[in-house]
């Protein structure tokens, strides 16, 4: 039933899935349209970014203090950045263009966020896999040592990105300052994200500083999964999980508050 007052959990879940599915289609259509390669842009766009950075780093021979194969270093590093960094960008300001759809009772702010986050995660993941498979098949990259570790690191980074996105996307409904500050912050966080260096290559004091950033732990873990014993990774997944959990709770709390005040237009 669409309008009944207290649907069961199972019915709510069915409604939620329908709504997120509908919003996914809406996002794909408005973002990529039906022209040229259409929704393939979902992962071609992040692929182009990663390819560009890989090419630059290869030319500059920039493994930033390690002797790892540069292509694998760039692909694991830059894909990770794209994964978590694009999510907040997609959620900040996502409420306004969907306000008219919120005339439908079951379409909530969380559904809008969820659809965009799923899409972002799918795009980044497909891009990572496609590049990995491609470079491995032409012999520029070796397959990962421990694929489960890579996956766990990836999921942790996605969690971080989603939690941050929900928090910033919600806060942005309170103050547009979030949007203004996110661009410089995202830019400045790139060199601090652990994507462009190995923590082990840093001086001791810098290591301690950089390990305050939760995404560094995710990238280090992922790289340990990829390169195995050839690198010495520094991470504490429990710290990262605690950080993400805190971020998630804060994000959901703010989202709950703004959801109550959203006015469909």
């Amino acid at each position, binding site marked *: 039933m669409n*309008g009944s007052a207290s649907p069961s959990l199972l019915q709510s879940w069915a409604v939620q899935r329908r*709504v997120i599915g509908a919003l996914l*289609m*809406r996002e794909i259509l408005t973002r990529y349209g039906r022209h040229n390669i259409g929704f393939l842009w979902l992962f071609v766009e992040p692929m182009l970014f990663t390819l560009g950075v890989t090419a630059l780093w290869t030319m500059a021979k920039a493994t930033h203090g390690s002797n790892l194969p540069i292509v694998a270093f760039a692909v694991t590093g830059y894909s990770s950045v794209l994964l978590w960094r694009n999510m907040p960008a997609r959620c900040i300001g996502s409420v306004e263009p969907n306000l*008219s*759809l919120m005339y*439908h009772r079951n379409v909530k702010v969380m559904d809008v966020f969820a659809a965009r986050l799923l899409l972002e995660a799918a795009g980044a993941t497909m891009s990572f896999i496609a590049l990995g498979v491609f470079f491995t098949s032409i012999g520029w990259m070796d397959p990962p040592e421990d694929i489960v570790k890579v996956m766990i690191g990836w999921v942790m980074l996605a969690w971080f990105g989603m939690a941050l996105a929900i928090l910033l996307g919600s806060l942005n409904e309170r103050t547009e300052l979030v949007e203004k500050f996110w661009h410089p912050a995202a830019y400045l966080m790139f060199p601090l994200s652990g994507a462009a260096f190995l923590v082990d290559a840093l001086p001791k004091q810098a290591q301690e500083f950089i390990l305050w950033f939760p995404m560094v732990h995710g990238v280090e873990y992922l790289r340990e999964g990829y390169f195995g014993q050839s690198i010495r990774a520094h991470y504490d997944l429990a710290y990262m999980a605690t950080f993400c959990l805190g971020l998630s709770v804060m994000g959901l709390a703010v989202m709950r508050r703004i959801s109550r005040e*959203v*006015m469909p237009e």
Partner: protein
Amino acid sequence: MIRLSDIHKRYHTRHGSVHVLDSINLSVAPGEKVGVLGRNGAGKSTLIRLISGAERPSAGHIVRDMSVSWPLAFGGAFQGALTGLDNLRFICRVYGRDAEDKIDYVQEFSELGRYLREPVRTYSAGMRARLAFAISMVVEFDCFLIDEIVAVGDARFHEKCRVELFEKRGDRAMILVSHDPGYVRAHCDRASVLVSGRMHSFDNVDEAYAFYQEHAG
């Protein structure tokens, strides 16, 4: 049954909190047609959005024991960048209906022709209204919420809407908000009047009309 108990709605504005709706009580039984009269800005649309569940009250409870439509207002509830057809598909997905067998009906009723495949933001107000109404009729509800539906469109279109809504769906409950007493009188069993956030309810439309003339007209 739809029941509103002691509903309040406040909005925060730059000059403090505005109390838009103040202790509203209302119940609507299946098949009942209830009108809500009020001048522009009296809080009619807010009330409809609260009943639909699109917005939440600041205080009070709303019980919906029947399926309730979204607020049928001409123009709203669409995404401008999507085509009319994609909006139809979106709404069908949200409400769990199959869109493909509804396309012909929407095409015919909205008289949009090939514009159904153009983005909604390129539509005129009249085209938007026709699409909105056609899509509204695709999903069936026990109770329809109707917000100023007389505002747009020509006489022939009004007649088509009247037949779809009040003849073919005459057995459904309806809550109709309007500033036009004639429209409410033509379609409602009873009516309430909203004056500065408070609701005054009457058992018959004529009493409501007299009150409206006196206090709000």
